[in-house]
Structure formats: structure tokens, C-alpha cells
């Protein structure tokens, strides 16, 4: 096989040099030993366009085609399959009936209050988490960029939560938010503020004496968002730090010379240049938020009650606990479309900018 490919390639090379010498950009150049042919760049292009099948495609296919087929089957094949499943009424037993496809599962979904609640939670989580995470990450990055001592230590510690799994952080935060003895409530107790916070957060509850962070609908989602910000703002920091380091020193100088204050310099000159970092960080953060299943699933294990369903957890519950597989598939498609809405424009703009 390799032998044949090798010969084919040699034949292709001979063909190229035979046909394209004149119209290509090759030049005769005088050197010490006489003249030499310098191969021009245009030759490759003209020949590539004239060949019926691109040689590079054939030659590189053994490297990328098998892995791409593997991933393609698991990603795109599976998504297509999921679309089919969402149009059946599959309940998890036996074979799905692919003969009768309809959209009735989507109708069920649209009239399901739990679905709309989960969608709302997902979007709130997505937007609030992403914005706050970006803001905190940018602030920390700017602070770290002030040529401070022990920069590495600070950076390492700020990024540390990112290396932990959702399950580990959920376990820790379930304890932090614990109503009886958790860190937050103990702190409030030390400051004698518990009653104030209870009346602020849940005025309608007469008997409540402790803040039930994870069991109250008013606080549960905010608590999740706060913990997720803790875990991922370090990521935003790293991205912004790379962006800051790419800004040339002259921009700082120029702002200084113009007499801008530090705050003004950052607001007017530096932060606007971080747009690219902000866009790429927010795309990744939104994807994390859409995938926050592990976190909420693990948090739920210990503190049931509050309405914390996002589409990711609802999909799992419906499909694998209630065995309504087709319904779960339909919710998964909504989640997929949401993800597409986030990454589609991003990938398109990257493609247009020639960054891919």
C-alpha cells in the first residue's frame, strides 16, 4: 500500500515539474556554480488547481479520516440518531419504533411547565454566570498584571478550583451552604446577621431561623451560580491575562502621556482591546454552564427540594430515571440547539477571520 502511494506521489511530482516549469514562477538564477532553478511558489497552486483529485487530500486522509470517522460517528451520528429517537415514543424497553415518526414529543414538551422552568433556569444560569465570571476574571487578571510579587502563586491558587471535578466542588459547596452548620450560616451567626438575611431573602416565612440556601427557590440558583463562578473565574482570568500580555507597552505609554488616570486608561484603552479574549472565554464558559449537569446532580443528592432543574439535569432525569427516553431525547435536542446558538456565530466569525 505504502509502496503504491509512494509511486503515485513520485509520478505526481514528475508530472508537476514537467508541466509547470514555464508558466510557473520558476527563475534561472546565477550562482557560483552556474545557473540553478529556483522553484517558484506559484507552481504548487496552479498545479493543485489543475489536478482532478487533490494529492494532499489522498495523502493526508490516512491520518485524519479514521479518527474523524470515529468522532463523527459518536458526535454527528449520535445527534442524528437522537433526532430520530425524539420523534418516536420510545420508553426504554425493546426497540424504538422508527417506522412512525412524528413531533408529538415536542408538543408534550412545549406544554410541560417543568420544561419551561428548566429552560428559564438554564438561560438565567447561562447569562448571569457568564457575565459575572467574565467580570471577575477580568478584574483579577488586571490586578495580577500589575507586576506584583508572587504572581505565579496567586495565579496558581486562583486557577486551582478549575482542576477539581464538578462532583468534588458540589460536595464541598453542599457543606458550605449547609443550613445548620455550613460556613455561610456560621459566619452570619458570628456576625449576628442570620435573622436579617432570613427576613430579606424569605420574608413570607415566619418560622424560618436559618437560611436554607439550597432549598429556597429564591436562593438556590444564585447559590449554584456563585459556586460555579468560584470554580471558573480562574479560567476567565487566564484567558484575559493572555490577552493583556498581548497588548503592546506603547498603548499604556500613550495613555499615560495623554494624562489618563489608571481607571480611565483601563476603561478607555485596555479593556476594549480584550474583546477577542472576552468572546472566546464567554463561549467556553457558556458551554460549561450548559454542561453543569454534574454539579447540580451531585448537589441535589444532598439537598433536594428547591427548583434547581436545568435542561441538562431534566434530560437525564426524564430519560434515565423516568425511562421516558424519547422525551429525554427531545429535551436533549433543545439543549443542542441552545449550544448551537452559542457556538454557531462564534465558529462562523472565527472562520471568516481565517482563524481556523
Amino acid at each position: 500500500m505504502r509502496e503504491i502511494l509512494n509511486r503515485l506521489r513520485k509520478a505526481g511530482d514528475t508530472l508537476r515539474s514537467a508541466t509547470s516549469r514555464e508558466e510557473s514562477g520558476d527563475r534561472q538564477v546565477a550562482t557560483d556554480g552556474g545557473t540553478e532553478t529556483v522553484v517558484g511558489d506559484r507552481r504548487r497552486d496552479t498545479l493543485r488547481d489543475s489536478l482532478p483529485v487533490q494529492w494532499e487530500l489522498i495523502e493526508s486522509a490516512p491520518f485524519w479520516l479514521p479518527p474523524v470517522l470515529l468522532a463523527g460517528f459518536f458526535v454527528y451520528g449520535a445527534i442524528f440518531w437522537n433526532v430520530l429517537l425524539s420523534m418516536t415514543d420510545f420508553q426504554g424497553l425493546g426497540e424504538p419504533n422508527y417506522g412512525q415518526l412524528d413531533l408529538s414529543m415536542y408538543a408534550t414538551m412545549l406544554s410541560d411547565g417543568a420544561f419551561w422552568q428548566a429552560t428559564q433556569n438554564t438561560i438565567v444560569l447561562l447569562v448571569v454566570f457568564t457575565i459575572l465570571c467574565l467580570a471577575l476574571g477580568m478584574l483579577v487578571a488586571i490586578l495580577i498584571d500589575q507586576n506584583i510579587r508572587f504572581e505565579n502563586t496567586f495565579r496558581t491558587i486562583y486557577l486551582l478550583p478549575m482542576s477539581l471535578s464538578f462532583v468534588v466542588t458540589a460536595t464541598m459547596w453542599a457543606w458550605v451552604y449547609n443550613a445548620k452548620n455550613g460556613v455561610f450560616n456560621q459566619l452570619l451567626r458570628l456576625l449576628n446577621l442570620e435573622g436579617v438575611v432570613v427576613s430579606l431573602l424569605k420574608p413570607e416565612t415566619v418560622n424560618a431561623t436559618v437560611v436554607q440556601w439550597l432549598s429556597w427557590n429564591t436562593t438556590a440558583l444564585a447559590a449554584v451560580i456563585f459556586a460555579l463562578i468560584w470554580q471558573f473565574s480562574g479560567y476567565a482570568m487566564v484567558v484575559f491575562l493572555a490577552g493583556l500580555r498581548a497588548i503592546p507597552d506603547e498603548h499604556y505609554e500613550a495613555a499615560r502621556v495623554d494624562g489618563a488616570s489608571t481607571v480611565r486608561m483601563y476603561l478607555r484603552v485596555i479593556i476594549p482591546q480584550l474583546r477577542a479574549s472576552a468572546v472566546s472565554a464567554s463561549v467556553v464558559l457558556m458551554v460549561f454552564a450548559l454542561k453543569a449537569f454534574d454539579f447540580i446532580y451531585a448537589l441535589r443528592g444532598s439537598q433536594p427540594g428547591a427548583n434547581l432543574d436545568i435542561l441538562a439535569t431534566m434530560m437525564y432525569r426524564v430519560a434515565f430515571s423516568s425511562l421516558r427516553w424519547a422525551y429525554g431525547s427531545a429535551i436533549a435536542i433543545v439543549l443542542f440547539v441552545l449550544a448551537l446558538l452559542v457556538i454557531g456565530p462564534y465558529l462562523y466569525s472565527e472562520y471568516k477571520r481565517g482563524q481556523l
Partner: protein
Amino acid sequence: MSTSDRNPIQRLRNMERSRIGLYVVLLFGIVFYLFPMETAVMTMFKTQQAFAQTVPFAPPSADGFTLAALQTAWNTLRPGLVNSMLMAIPATILSALLGSLTAYGLTTLDWRGQVGVVVLIIAGIFIPYQAVLVPLSQFWYQILPDLMNGFVNTVFGFYTDGNWVYPSRNGDVQLVQLSITHAAYGLPICTLLFRSYYKSISDEMIEAARLDGATAFSIYKNIILPLSLPMFAVTLIYQFTQVYNDLLFALVLVNEPAANVATQRLTALTGGVVQSFNTTMAGAIVAALPTLLVYVFFGEQFAKGVAE
């Protein structure tokens, strides 16, 4: 350092006071990022009584110190840790290797339509795994067993009497399936990491090798692979934490208790009716240990993988 020249605060030496403020804010940041872990570590060494008497972030008193919670958590999680390693290490190596090959095929050799393939691969990084979950479990539990049963019993029918059953209920098999799944879904991000790295390798060296008649594979083996060792470090470290930390795929693909991975066992530990937070905190720390160690020793490479 050029950073000191451009640094506005550094240059205004009479503003040392605001620098103190800066360090106070940064130290507050350390408190913010470390307190859940600090609390977890303090809590896991406390007896049930000390646990109720002391504030969560304070160390245990002399008589309130115990290693019992850690012992319990370790015993519960140890099989999960072994399973996680058995599953994550092959998955990580496989996806890094395949990612490297794919990136090579999509970078050094230039052909029209290449970008289309790259876009499809990169989009694969961002898909929510929920969108493939049901087909995935269908594939591993139904389609593949049916195919294997048919194949083995047809080809080796004289030997199996047509009774061979694909061991989809076998924990080891489930771990292999989970590993392959992770390798497949890790491939896109690995490809992206290697691709951005390969784009910076100069074409001249490769052109020279090609003029000498080197095949695409020998160029990969002799030039690209040695050059990509630093990128392999980054990818392996990043990918290992991703695979090790996952819960979702494990929940769906591994239902044999003996094959449960560390994240699954930790959820089981937290989800119990009776909650003893010293044990669950010890569990969290034990489960976090592998990736924490990776992070402590290879923080730089991890940060590189994250920032890409």
C-alpha cells in the same frame, strides 16, 4: 522586565499605599478561592462531636481530631479510584495520539476543504453530551451486543453453539466502553490543541524532508512526533483531568457497582440519607487527589491547555 516599564502603578512610586491595597485584595482572592477546600480539610479531621462544636473553618480541637472519617472515605473510594485510573489513562493516551495524527493530517498537508473538516471537529468540542446520551446507551447496550452476538455466533457457531452472549453486564467491559467513549469525545479538543501547535512548525523542514522522498508517515514519525512532545504533555494533562472528572458518561455507561468510577462513588457517598459531613469532605479530598497532584506538579501545562 518590560512589564515594569509599562506598569502605571509601579511608575508612580509615591503611590505605595494603593499597592498595599492591591495586595490586600489579592490576598482576599486567595481566601475566596481556598476557603471551601480549607473547610473540607478541617472538617475531615473532626469527630462527630467536634464537628458540631467548632465552626467549620476552624481546626479540630486536640481531642476532636480523628482519622476515622478519612479511613472510611478511603475505603469507600479506593475501588473507584482504581477504576477511574484504569479507564482514564488509556482514554487519555488514545485521544491524544489520535488528536495528534488528525491534527497532522489537517495541518501540514494542505488541501481544499480542510477548513470544513476542522470546523466540524471543533464544533464537536462544544456539543452538550446530553444530546448523544440516549443513542450512546442504545449503542453500547443494544446495537453492539446484537452485532457481536450475531458475528461471533455466526463465525464461531461450531464453537459457541450459537449461545455466546456479549458481556455487556460485565464491569470490565463497561469500563472499556467508557474509556473508548471518552477517547472519541476527547478527540476534538486534542485535535484543536495539536493543530494550533503544528501551525507554528515551519513548513521548510517538512518540505525538505518531502523532497528527500520521505513519506507522510515517516515525516510524522521522525519530525512531527519528536517536536510535539511538549504539546503531548499539555494535552495529556488537560485531557486526563477532563476524563477523570467526568460523571455523566459514567452514570450512563457503568451500572455495575464494582466498576463504578471515583466520581460515581463520591456521589453515592454524598447522596446517602444520613449525612456525616466529615466523611463526605474526606471523600471529596480523596477523590480530588489525583487531579490536585497533577495540578500541583504540572500547573503550567494545565494552564496552557485551559487557555487554548
